[in-house]
């Protein structure tokens, strides 16, 4: 039988491909949007997209899996 830890690991690999950067990047983008959406105004959407684009670039710096 598979342990709970192994199951979580498999699910994490299935969803996020074992990346640490991508969940953090998404969390950062959501956090910035929720905190500064009103003050950023029109720029909130480009800012959200910009953080996610930066996350893609940062994710390719992770060790190849």
């Amino acid at each position, binding site marked *: 039988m598979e342990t709970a830890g192994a199951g979580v690991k498999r699910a994490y690999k299935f969803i996020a*491909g074992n*990346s640490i950067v*991508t969940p953090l990047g*998404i969390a950062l983008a959501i956090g910035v*949007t929720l905190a500064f959406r009103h003050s950023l105004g029109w720029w909130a*959407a480009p800012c959200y997209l910009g953080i996610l*684009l930066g996350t893609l*670039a940062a994710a390719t710096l992770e060790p190849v899996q």
Partner: protein
Amino acid sequence: MNGWVAAGTTFIASGLEFVEAATIVLAVGYTAGWRVALSATAWAIGALVVITGLLGPALIRWVALNDLKIGIGIFLTLFGYTWLRKAIWRYAGRKAMRDEEAAFEAGVADLRKHEHRYAFATAFNGVLLEGLEVAVIVLTFSAARAGTFLSAAAGALAAAAIVAGAAVLLRHPFSRVPENAMGFIVGIMLLSFGTFWSGEGLGLHWWQGEGTLLWIVGFYLACALLLVAAWKRPVRA
């Protein structure tokens, strides 16, 4: 536009997953017999139908649309990153291209060491896991946009029919499928939809409404091509 894009994206994504599942089923069929391979496939498809049938309506019925968009958006974005990152690494020469022929040979060699129950479990797990990814993509597309379920499901079913038909005719792993190019396109589409829907769920106003989706696709495509070019450059000592 959404229906065609949903059908196209699920068609390519499902095609890739089904090619991998077919490689596993073919390896099991050749080593442990077609009865084991096909019965395991049928059980896995049955399990997928049950999971999809229970999960899909539950999602749409009990979760608020905006929360659903955020959840689905995050899911698709994570999936998209995984697909696109792998494709970028492969195009840049940092990761070996997937070789279905080699995967088939490795599968056959591994199966020869074990008994029939292992062969059944291998085929069942292979079809279930690859199919689960397809089910998640179809469900998320249809949950985030009303009216896209039929298009998304039709894309996946068309891919399943083509791959299954080709597997029956060829009885050989598919070594000529441009898997990396397809993975690159799917990665960009999943990321773009994920970004767009999660943004909508968070209350962002995309500057050109639905038309912004094309801009997002363009930005991710440009970014991915730049990253491939950057990673291809030899590192200076």
